[in-house]
């Protein structure tokens, strides 16, 4: 049985003028369904690059990357956008909500791209926001919401198309400690109760150790440490 997610000797090189930046330089990891992985490392270690490759936002230079049995290197650009629609949900440090749309519209947007009919979209957006304790804030726009509320809207959006993999890039990076704890509790709940696989990038080793099943530490594009549960 193929692994839920597997990378083999994954490389991502950028050309920066004369020199080549090796953002990822041969990463091989495997993730099982239902795991909560913490990706650790200082800035520039390549942890965000790895997350972007898994999300299908970027293409690897070399190596294999299989998610849910599909080889992302072989996918067309349209197939990658379907992968982003259905297989993964992404949560960003800076929330990345469309500021001119209401909370409900932001959540419905990802379902719009997936071709979900409007009545169902609206109903599901409402359900998700209520589940995130944002029932009364559906018509509010992101600038009218607090950081924690915005991140909960973003999580609702990430869940809209029922992906099996959640990718979180420093999800608490812009939040205070109390709100951070709320968001982390929410992610833990999604992992434990709903069985969603989560990969979370953070530079906060304490946070990763507290919530993740195991941690992978990157440095200069290679895996330098891997904790086992």
């Amino acid at each position, binding site marked *: 049985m193929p692994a839920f997610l597997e990378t083999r000797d994954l490389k991502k090189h950028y050309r920066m003028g004369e020199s080549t930046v090796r953002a990822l330089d041969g990463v091989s990891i495997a993730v099982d369904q239902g795991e909560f992985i913490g990706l650790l490392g200082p800035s520039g270690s390549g942890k965000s690059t790895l997350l972007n490759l898994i999300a299908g*936002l970027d293409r690897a230079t070399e190596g294999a990357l299989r998610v849910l049995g599909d080889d992302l290197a072989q996918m067309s*650009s349209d197939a990658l956008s*379907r992968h982003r*629609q259905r297989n993964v949900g*992404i949560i960003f440090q800076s929330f*990345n909500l469309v500021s*001119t749309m209401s909370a409900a519209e932001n959540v419905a947007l990802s379902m719009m*791209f*997936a071709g979900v009919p409007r009545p169902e979209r609206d109903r599901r957006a409402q359900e998700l926001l209520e589940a995130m304790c944002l029932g009364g804030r559906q018509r509010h726009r992101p600038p009218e919401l607090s950081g924690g509320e915005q991140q909960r809207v973003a999580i609702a959006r990430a869940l809209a198309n029922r992906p099996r993999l959640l990718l979180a890039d420093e999800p608490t990076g812009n939040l205070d400690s109390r709100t951070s704890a709320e968001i982390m509790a929410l992610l833990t709940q999604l992992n434990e109760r709903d069985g969603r696989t989560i990969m979370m990038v953070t530079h906060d080793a304490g946070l990763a150790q507290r919530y993740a099943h195991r941690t992978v530490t990157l440095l200069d594009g290679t895996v330098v440490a891997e904790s086992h549960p």
Partner: protein
Amino acid sequence: MTIGDTVQLALRNLNQTKLRTALTVLGVSIGIASLAGMVSLGIGLQDQFVGRFTKSGVFDAITVMSAQDRPGVLASGLGLGAGQRGGARARGSSAAVPTKPRPRLDDDALRRIGALQRVKEVYPNLRVPVALSHERFAESYIATGVPMSARNEGAFQTFAYGAFFNNESENACVLSLDVAKQINERDPRDLVGKQVTLTWVASAAIAAGAPSAADNPLQLQHAEARYTVVGIVEREPGPGGLPGATPSGLMIPLARAREISAVDAGSLQSLFREPAQGKSYGSLTVKVTRPQFTGDAENQIKEMGFMAFSLNDALTGAKRAFIVLDIVLGLIGSIALVVSSLGIVNTMVMSILERTREIGIMKAIGGSDGDIRRIFLVEASVIGCAGGAAGVALGWLVGRVINFGANLYVQSQGGPTGNLFSLPPWLVGVAIGFAFVVSLIAGSYPASRAARLDPIQALRHD
């Protein structure tokens, strides 16, 4: 992503930048208005020119004459002088003498020409010398036979007094204003409804066995009839197809002219022809169903061995000139449209710069390159269609204002009014369709630029 969702999202985006969208739409509408205005000016001018000339009954008419050599002035006294002038005016080809035996222009030829395709009507140009008397006035005129189809054509479009013949068989005549003034200097209007007496030569024969030719060789018998004056026209109409022919101040229904000339021609003309030939006409007028068919019909008639010419070629040349004029006007109008399409490009590029991050977000949550491209193309085409519709309305409005102004001027100069600008329904459709296509072309570069954006770069954008 469904089309409905794409349109909804695009409209929403446009709504967010109302002022900029409105200004861009205004730009497009000025471009379309100038294009539609210029083209409708071209169409209007053409309608004015061609319409007026087509109504004159000259351009759908062909004049047919026998190609046979005729004995100068003696040839029935009608049509020939005009025929020579007209023949000289026609191009070389029409004057070419056929090698076949020359057919005569008789009733049989009339039927054969009438049977040709696209020929609406054939009638002989009958001009009979008559004497007209009314009370103490008496003068000789050439009476022209006018077919009933000439109603509302040429000189019969407007009557100074009275109206056209009611039917073909009545003893009625129409006078030109000149002739009417000759009869009744002070009040020509008074003649309408009055009766005049026409007298003509009913038969003539060479007095057989006359001792000397100088001693009254012709025996003439006169006939006369009372004719009612039904109308008076301002100018003297030339016979159809022969604008250069001697105009006639006295017009009677064709059928009446035919009767008079039947008696007359059977005798007088036959004096100068071989007796076996019977009756023939000096010239015929052939009316075709549409002016553009004159060339065809003309050639067919020439193949039958007759001389034929029309003025349609002049009209064809004029129409060609109008096509060139339309293209030139269209190009001038297009300049504004090109400028406004650059406005669309500018607006869309600006919009993409502002919404780079939003595009990145949409891609990250599953929007495909195609989705993004379509959203921006729909935005551009909505601007284009709105601009097209507004532009047609604007062009129509400006055209109406200029029409109104021009007609005020023309009326003050005593000319006939008409529409300088004409906006036919097809032009409305073409203008909006054109705006749509132009906006799609203008939007295609920004849209594909948006579609190609790297989502990671776009998400870092502020």
